[in-house]
């Protein structure tokens, strides 16, 4: 019989084991793993040539972001990719669990739902951080100036952005638990964010109504924070407004996401669909 002394390890052990599991699985698909990084580099090259062709026309709108369209777009695409991977990470693991029949066993373990969801997101975050670094490195090689970056502010902004994107990821995962196929929440937030958050153009070019709508999207504030801290070197004294906005959105979306996931699991446990796919 297991004694309490032997049954230690808790959530850090679960988080580590889940991360190792996901890393091993991802590495086993070597070609796909490598192609992801090759795709990122090609994406950067596309942005580079796009900025050479059309970048100058956006000139005055980009002054507060360091002035060059290439840097503006690289950070936009890098952070939106970061959001997409973070946002779909949890729901992808949930979907895999449904397909492989492991979700029910995960939920049979003596862990809180939050621990399982948090652990499931770790590999996605590592993957998205690696992709982000690759984007920034490739951007720097192609002429992006990061010399003025306010690293503590950029780090804090990135950390808050991760939590915000996870909140959206939780909402997306809750829908996947119930409806199985597809990922409509990720699709909706992804499309809306690319359109309204200023990934490839500043939000100032949008009509007033859409600009107001864009304030509800975490990516809008994450991009504002990352560009102005990493490219223009601004700190919390000038960035407190988008930082506060992102924190408020996170404070709203995160509990909703946790509640929605718990509710979705309960629905699946009631209708017996945890192991269905």
């Amino acid at each position, binding site marked *: *019989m*297991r004694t309490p002394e032997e049954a230690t390890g808790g959530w850090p052990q679960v988080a580590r084991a*889940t991360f190792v599991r996901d890393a*091993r699985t991802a590495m086993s698909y070597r070609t796909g793993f490598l192609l992801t990084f090759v795709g990122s580099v090609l994406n950067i090259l596309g942005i580079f040539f796009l900025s050479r062709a059309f970048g100058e026309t956006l000139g005055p709108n980009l002054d507060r972001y360091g002035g060059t369209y290439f840097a503006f777009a690289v950070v936009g695409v890098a952070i939106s990719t970061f959001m997409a991977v973070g946002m779909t990470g949890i729901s992808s693991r949930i979907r895999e669990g449904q397909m*492989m029949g492991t979700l029910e066993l995960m*939920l049979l373990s003596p862990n809180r739902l939050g621990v399982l969801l948090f652990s499931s997101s770790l590999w996605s975050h590592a993957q998205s951080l690696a992709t982000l670094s690759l984007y920034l490195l490739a951007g720097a090689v192609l002429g992006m100036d990061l010399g003025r970056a306010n690293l503590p502010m950029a780090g804090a902004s990135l950390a808050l952005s991760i939590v915000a994107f996870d909140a959206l990821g939780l909402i997306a995962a809750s829908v996947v638990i119930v409806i199985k196929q597809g990922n409509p929440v990720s699709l909706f937030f992804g499309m809306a964010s690319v359109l309204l958050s200023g990934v490839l153009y500043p939000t100032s070019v949008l009509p007033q109504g859409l600009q107001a709508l864009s304030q509800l999207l975490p990516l809008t504030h994450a991009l504002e924070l990352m560009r102005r801290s990493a490219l223009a070197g601004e700190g919390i004294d000038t960035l407190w407004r988008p930082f506060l906005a992102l924190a408020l959105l996170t404070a709203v979306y995160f509990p909703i996401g946790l509640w929605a996931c718990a509710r979705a699991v*309960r629905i699946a446990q009631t209708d017996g669909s945890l*192991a269905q796919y």
Partner: protein
Amino acid sequence: MGRPGPYHAVVIEASDLTKRFRQLGGYRDLALYPWRRRSHLAVDDISLEIGEGELFGLLGENGAGKTTLIRMLTTTLVPTSGSARVGGYDVVRNPHPVRRLIGLVSGDERTFYWRLTGRQNLEFFASLYHVARPRATRRIAELLDSLDVADYADERFDTYSTGIRQKFAIARGLLTEPRVLFLDEPTRALDPIAADETRRYINDHIVSRLGTTVLMATHTLSEAESMCRRIAIIRHGRMFAAGSMDELRSRMALRDVFELVVVGRSAGLRDTISAVTGLEHVLAVAEGDQTRVQVHMNGRQGALNDLLRAVLETGVQVQSSTMRRPTLDDIYRAAHADT
């Protein structure tokens, strides 16, 4: 209600446990008949008690409700009504303490990470179930040895045969040394030799050596009869009968079975036997010049003498005869004939 007997502490108890699944119609039904609520009754009012260290069998055909009952007892499915306790904890109100007490082995081959090795899978599940790392390493080595799969442990899971996968499923179920183990058709996809090995391991190691309480769902009659001290027969979600083999025989009012093989043709053999008082369910099947006779004795004194005399008077020769107690097969068939 099936009771474990006076010498066992009750570890699993279910009281009027019921599960009704909502059935979703298509968009057409939703539009035309929005008030309609269709449902399927998977488990209907089941009550049972299973004692510490007992190997209890759930017997029923596919779709009888065995897996649904196990999923409710293992906290992954919320009952519609009724209650259940495992190790004294309510499965709905206190699922976490229940999960610390139990292990689950299903016959489903999915449930593993196929691109990881067997050992990596077990290491992951050990961490998930909070088994401390040094202990997990030792425990995995013990289980791999006792199940005779150590040689396969570092190969990828997708290269394993069904039998090896099932052994890894058993190893996973035992990682935490659970007090209660649920086995959901553990030999479903196995060949006869692998199935026998698995049964032997369950009996000799899990029940006899470790003293684990086991609830095993199966639709294999011989498996249930040879392994389980008590059996519950489930039909269409209801518990038809439960108890030891003697209790089931008594419940079904089944008497001993007399089997006779005679040589030589006798056209009126069956009618002659049927005329003997004290016999039931007379069956006579001719195979070449032999006739195989099976009758259920109803307990009347002298019935066997009368039967043999009547048979010999027809001019046939008795080649062999056996008296046996009704098997689970007889009980199961009688249960199906009853409903």
